[in-house]
């Protein structure tokens, strides 16, 4: 197996996790920046549609590094799709696969279930809840909580901040409730 084939396989957690953790010192040493992604959404609001809202009246250009960072994430996704993508379907836990098959979701070729996340589905109730409402809650919730998985769960907890631990527990609790109680109901729609 050559290097490219080897790197194309899905990376195990003990490779990916430590590499993600290293983003913290890299950003601190590159320019005294705190690892975090969701603030970029706020900066985009401040740059494009601040209106007269005090929450968006700040010098977003001073935070522009964050927009360069998320631009990089997008390019990274693109490079991976072009050069490093895994040719095999995503390996899914058999219990989840059986459950999803019950709702007619059998295509596991990509990272997202193609039967759910596509343009045609956007105007169905199911698609609207997953794609549009879900996105809205991500944007509203992360800003209300003051951070997301990177800013609170990884950067905040690494800096031993109790509020970040509390926020992370709430992320998980919210996810547990929706994934176990609401997702089955939504997929039946």
């Amino acid at each position: 197996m050559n290097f490219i084939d080897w790197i194309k396989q899905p990376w195990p957690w003990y490779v990916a996790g430590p590499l993600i953790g290293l983003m913290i010192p890299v950003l601190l040493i590159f320019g005294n920046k705190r690892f975090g992604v969701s603030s970029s959404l706020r900066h985009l609001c401040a740059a494009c549609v601040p209106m007269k809202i005090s929450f968006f009246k700040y010098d977003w250009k001073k935070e522009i590094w964050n927009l360069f960072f998320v631009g990089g994430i997008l390019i990274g996704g693109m490079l991976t799709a072009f050069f490093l993508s895994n040719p095999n379907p995503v390996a899914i836990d058999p219990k989840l696969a059986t459950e999803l098959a019950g709702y007619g979701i059998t295509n596991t070729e990509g990272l997202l279930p193609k039967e759910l996340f596509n343009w045609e589905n956007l105007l169905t109730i199911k698609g609207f809840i997953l794609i549009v409402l879900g996105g809205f809650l991500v944007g509203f919730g992360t800003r209300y909580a003051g951070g997301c998985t990177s800013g609170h769960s990884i950067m905040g907890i690494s800096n031993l901040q109790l509020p970040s631990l509390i926020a992370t527990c709430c992320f998980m609790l919210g996810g547990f409730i929706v994934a176990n109680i609401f997702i089955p109901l939504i997929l039946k729609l």
Partner: protein
Amino acid sequence: MPTFSFHLFLNFDLKIMNTTTNTFRSTDLNTDFEVRTENSECVNYSVLDKPLLSNLKFTAAGILFGIILVKSEVISWFRIQEMFRLQSFHMYGVIGSAIVVGIISIFIIKKFKIRSIDGEEIHFDQKKFNRGQVYGGLLFGFGWALTGACPGPLFALIGSGFTVIIVTLLSAIAGTWVYGYVRVKLPH
């Protein structure tokens, strides 16, 4: 709406590229540091006036982060469902080991007073608890389970060719905006 926003954004971008000295002293800016920080994880503590293109090193870091997000499949809706159903250790392993490396890194930076490459002192802030972390945290958890993505993966998914996620990203930006609009009325 999307084209309009991006157009404006590009314009701003060009403007600062022309005036490399970043002198921004409009009086209507929000100068209250508390308001600015309490909701922003990544407030920029660097006081240096760096040229715009020096930010490309953060793009490089972002590219690496994006590749890791895709290759470890943490951007996968399937992986997120497994995590919330306790069917797989993968996500817990990724986040847990990232935190362990983060704790060690921050400890070393504090202990040896390591400076940034520009020679600036690196300092850390203490977060204050507010109820937003509970209410907002729950709401974000709901959204995370529905979309299978937090903000970082949204960008990585779009890059990987899942174009419909552009709608999710725009919706997330709208969510952030609505939060800013109703913020003063919400319990914190």
